[in-house]
């Protein structure tokens, strides 16, 4: 790792293995994330990024290995417990609460910290403003565009006041024009003192955002380093970037 004197990591993934039937999706993977860092998980389809993400988020329990977050082992904790501990996530395929308004969607995240619904609403509105959805605050979430839904996902997750935010393909499925805005938004989240893990395909996004990237293939780590180092890594180029230069 880059850091000569690593602080206590916020997240420590230790030797996780996860198999589905006979297929080993993640094989003995270990890494840690320092406070304030943005770590990118990259790799081709089927590399095990999403499984890793799900194991950290609590969707799956790993077959082997442990996950330690903020000093507590959370390997088998339910997602709602992880959320209360300060770990939030967004969904690649956005999951808005269709019949709630945008503000109410964000309130679902905010009620964890508020006794009163009125207070939760005030705080929710702040995050709605922060992600730039102020004008849509009172429409039902089902009326949002894809890019707006991604923003809503972030506002909701932020409302839980996380220490670590997992972002699953923030720019996936979004038109090119919306990408810079989303990148700016993620930078602003980091400005709030947040630690982030992002899954991302778009090399430009990774270069702009990530401090460090882990390149995965077939469930194992193939390379690790700064985005620039990863982009120069021969095996990575062969596997991923070489075929599609336009990506970068």
């Amino acid at each position, binding site marked *: 790792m880059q850091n000569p004197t690593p602080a206590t990591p916020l997240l420590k993934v230790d030797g996780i293995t996860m198999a589905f039937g006979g297929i080993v999706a993640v094989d003995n993977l270990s890494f840690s994330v320092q406070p304030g860092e943005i770590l990118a998980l990259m790799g081709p389809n089927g590399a095990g990024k999403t499984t890793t993400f799900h194991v950290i*988020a*609590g*969707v799956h329990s790993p077959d082997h290995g442990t996950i330690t977050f903020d000093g507590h082992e959370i390997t088998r904790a*339910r*997602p*709602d417990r992880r*959320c*209360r501990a300060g770990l*939030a*996530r967004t*969904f690649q395929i956005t*999951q*808005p*609460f*269709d*019949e*709630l308004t945008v503000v*109410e*969607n964000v*309130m*679902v*995240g905010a*009620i*964890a910290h508020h006794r009163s*619904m009125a207070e*939760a*609403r005030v705080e929710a509105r702040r995050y709605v403003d922060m992600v730039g959805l102020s004008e849509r605050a009172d429409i039902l979430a089902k009326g949002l565009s894809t890019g707006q839904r991604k923003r809503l996902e972030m506002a*909701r*997750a932020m*409302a*839980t006041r996380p220490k670590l935010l997992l972002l699953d393909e923030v720019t996936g499925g979004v038109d090119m024009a919306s990408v810079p805005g989303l990148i700016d938004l993620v930078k602003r989240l980091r400005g709030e003192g947040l630690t982030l893990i992002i899954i991302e395909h778009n090399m430009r996004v990774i270069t702009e955002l990530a401090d460090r990237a882990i390149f995965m293939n077939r469930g194992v780590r193939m390379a690790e380093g700064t985005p620039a180092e990863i982009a120069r890594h021969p095996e990575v180029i062969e596997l991923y970037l070489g075929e599609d230069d336009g990506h970068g």
Partner: protein
Amino acid sequence: MFQPVKPSQWLVIAAAILVMAAVPLVTRNSYLLHVLILTMIFGIFASAWNLVAGFGGMKTFGHHAFFGIGAYVSALLSIKAGWSPWLTIWFGALAATGAGLFIGLPILRIKSMSHVAIVTLGFAEIVRIVISNLQTITRGELGLWGIRPFEGFTLPFFGEITFSPADKVPYYYLILLLLIGSTAVIMLLMRSRTGLSIIAMRDAEDAAESLGVNLTRQKLLVFAVSAFLVGIAGAFYAHYISILTPTAAVGIDLMILVIAMALVGGLSTFSGPLVGALLLTGTVELLRDLDQYRLLVYGAMIILIVMFLPKGLTTLGPVLRKRFASR
């Protein structure tokens, strides 16, 4: 739903309560009061089912079990133990709550709603069969009769209040109070964090859980509240009708009728199940003259409403406004 109640909405609520409270002052027609009492029993039942199935999105088809359990437990305690119905109705409701938690726990883990429907339906059928076979206690299909009515009491300014088949007015006011209480409980619950959580859970369960919603706790809570309310409606029914049979108190017909009420009135709304209960209970009675064609007309009416107002009668206003605005 989570915005403060507007003055105009308070006005509608106050007007509805006033109109209902004024009916016995205008007419003491025993038949009309009976129909309205049944309407209010069904109003509680349909609202409570809507809490779980509409707001909560859990498609349970076995709520008639809670109605029957509430009715039989309250009736049997008052007969066998000699306790006052004023007390036993709460035990009936608690028994229904217990049953709700018992069936609620396993179905929480089932993600497929059609399976939830079948499991709950099966559970209710088991309850019905057990009640019909426990003849030494429940008298089975012969019917449990001689259920004690509520004891009378003296109210200042009103004098002696007696609950008897001859005078339906006390029953009318009692069930009106229970209906107001149930509706208030449902509205307060839905406007709270729990309400927000269960709607979130219905729309996107994984997302709700990732935002800190404890799915098990919230689902069990609404299931228990719903079973309690249905149980109290069942218990009131027992002491009002004073005779229970498994078919009448735990029959599947009851559940189908209640589902129809919620759908016709409007699922996931506060007023929908109440409007549906009024319309369908009322229509059944109005159509009695049609004799065997009654069910035909009744069915056609439900189909028409569901076809043209899929979100229920309570959306009639907005739908019409849209129609006229677009011309």
